[in-house]
């Protein structure tokens, strides 16, 4: 416990410098600003804004990106409540009762409850991360190459199992992602792979190029071809702050949501995505007035929003301690860390303690910022929602072009991003999800490296992966989860888990 306090102290001493507080503030502000735009989810927001953090030092860049992430998350909830357009899967639940509240003239209250719930969830999750960071890292250091390989396979399988839609298609996207990570010169053997003689591919494909193509450009194509129906709330926003009685009434949903989100977020594979759905289902079940759910129940906003924020935050744990991103947003954070020359993994906590603890401390500061930025600025966000999409997307296009160009001052990278935009849109039309692709791409290199190391240690004997009890049980768990998800009964349950009850 003393360690946790000491480490958090170090973190706050880094994060509370004027510059880093300013960056965190700026990140939250820009993140909310972009995230509140309809049709721009957190992944797209981070991909679009990634280049503007490149000129900062590593700590500042990561703090700002984390701020952007929280801002984008909160912006997504704002759009869900006010316009009924969930920017991403996890905001779907918020839209259910939040938008109903808004139509009943309680938009302000819904936003206020979401912000306060998120703040409480964020505070608890930050403490949890600080407490778990050191032991998880120790665990990570115990892992040899074969255990790491098994853990990655398990994470990828979990990501497939938890994704919505077809299991086969999700597996195919992961395979596609890993294949794309093979493109370029193989560092081990110096052989060119999958370059088809194109010399722009010799150095491999930049992650930002893929992310901006799949999550930036493809999203635009999707929105243009298939305009979302906007249902901007015309009713008044109403008071923002809940009364003491309302806070008391929603404290239990907030705490239950926080617990659910924290646990699910730590899972490798995108567990956090389930958190708001699970929280909504539980609140509806324990509520004394379950009939109010879907018609503007406060607990139906406070619970899932807290779960969402807790999960968003604890999903940093596998990234920071094991170097394994559990979802597309964390995959982008890996990309950002690599650009800054930091290889994520259990060694970061020892080699860059200031960065590690500074980032964790800044998470809490980010949550405070959200509270003080968002509530007073609601009026501005509402007005932003009225900006027509035909004026928004050309701005996003120019931003992405300049951003990708400045990565390496290379116009070819811009063209390649355009190509991935087309690929991403085609994948969307064919009902493939881009998130597993991004995850496969980011983990691909590490996967191959660990595979090689493990086989060198075992003199080429592939049974090494089932020889160690840890890797055997991880792989067993993966096989079990995959088999389970293919069972007809579980499949039906899985499909309904993603549908509003």
């Amino acid at each position, binding site marked *: 416990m003393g360690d946790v306090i000491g480490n958090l102290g170090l973190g706050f001493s880094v994060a509370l410098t004027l510059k880093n507080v300013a960056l965190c503030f700026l990140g939250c502000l820009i993140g909310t600003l972009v995230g509140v735009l309809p049709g721009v989810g957190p992944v797209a927001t981070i991909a679009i804004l990634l280049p503007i953090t490149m000129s900062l030092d590593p700590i500042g860049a990561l703090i700002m990106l984390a701020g952007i992430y929280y801002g984008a998350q909160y912006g997504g909830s704002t759009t869900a409540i006010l316009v009924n357009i969930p920017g991403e899967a996890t905001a779907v639940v918020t839209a259910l009762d939040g938008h109903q509240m808004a139509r009943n003239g309680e938009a302000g209250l819904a936003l206020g409850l979401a912000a306060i719930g998120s703040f409480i969830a964020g505070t608890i999750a930050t403490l949890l991360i600080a407490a778990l960071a050191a032991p998880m890292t120790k665990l990570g250091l115990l892992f040899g190459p074969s255990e790491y390989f098994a853990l990655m396979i398990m994470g990828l399988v979990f990501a497939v199992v938890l994704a919505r839609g077809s299991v086969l298609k999700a597996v195919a996207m992961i395979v596609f992602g890993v*294949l794309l990570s*093979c493109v370029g010169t193989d560092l081990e053997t110096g052989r060119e792979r999958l370059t088809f003689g194109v010399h722009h591919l010799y150095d491999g494909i930049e992650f930002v190029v893929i992310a901006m193509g799949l999550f930036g450009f493809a999203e635009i194509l999707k929105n243009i071809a298939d305009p979302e129906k906007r249902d901007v709330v015309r009713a008044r926003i109403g008071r923002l702050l809940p009364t003491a009685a309302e806070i008391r009434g929603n404290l239990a949903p907030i705490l239950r949501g926080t617990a659910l989100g924290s646990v699910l977020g730590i899972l490798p594979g995108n567990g956090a995505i389930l958190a708001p759905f699970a929280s909504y289902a539980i609140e509806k079940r324990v509520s004394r007035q379950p009939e109010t759910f879907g018609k503007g129940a406060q607990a139906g906003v406070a619970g899932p929003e807290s779960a969402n924020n807790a999960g968003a935050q604890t999903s940093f744990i596998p990234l920071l301690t094991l170097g394994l991103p559990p979802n597309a947003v964390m995959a982008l954070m890996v990309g950002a860390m690599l650009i800054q020359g930091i290889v994520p993994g259990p060694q970061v906590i020892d080699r860059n303690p200031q960065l590690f603890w500074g980032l964790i401390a800044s998470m809490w500061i980010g949550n405070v910022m959200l509270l003080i930025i968002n509530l007073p600025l609601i009026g501005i966000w509402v007005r932003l929602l009225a900006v027509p999409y035909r004026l928004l997307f050309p701005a996003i296009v120019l931003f992405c072009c300049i951003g990708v*160009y400045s990565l390496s001052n290379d116009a070819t990278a811009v063209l390649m991003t355009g190509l991935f935009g087309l690929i991403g849109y085609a994948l969307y039309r064919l009902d493939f999800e881009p998130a597993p692709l991004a995850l496969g791409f980011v983990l691909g290199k590490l996967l191959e490296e660990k595979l090689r190391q493990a086989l060198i240690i075992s003199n080429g004997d592939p049974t090494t992966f089932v020889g160690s009890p840890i890797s055997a049980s991880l792989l067993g768990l993966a096989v079990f989860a995959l088999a389970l998800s293919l069972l007809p009964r579980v499949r039906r349950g899985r499909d309904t888990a993603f549908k509003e009850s």
Partner: protein
Amino acid sequence: MADVSDGGPPAATGWMASRDFVAGLALLLVGGGALLGSMELPVKTSSGVGSGLLPISLSLIMMALGLAQIGLSWRSASPTLSGWPWRGTSALIGAIVVFAITIRGVNLGPLQLPALGLVIAGPLTVFVAGLATTDARLGQLGLLSAGLSAFCLLLFRYGLGQPIPVAPWLIGY
């Protein structure tokens, strides 16, 4: 829904035009292409895993998944794919290409273009991209392209210090 677009008749009908059949076909093609690009690589080396093991095995898995998807699509009733949104895709890709060739110029045999810098590339990109929607208004788009370019110029070049060309033909950088 995935199947709304701005027009065009479906290219084929029935099972061959169903979403899941095309999805399977796409996986098969990508897997096959990846196999072509990696099949000459060694799967094993004297010291362990060769550079071909991962790409070759993944290509084969991808092709198998494609075949399985095609098989599944025979029984699943996935919706028929409708036409491709040509206006949106060509305007967006056009804007990206315009940006890529004007920002630093190109020198590709017959295609010669001097570096025009952000002052020209910015407004052009915004304008062409804006044509992607049917509700585009030219006057509004003109104003937007000028304003946005000025903003990006200040932000990226002067605010963030990125070495992006501004107007090489006018001021030399």
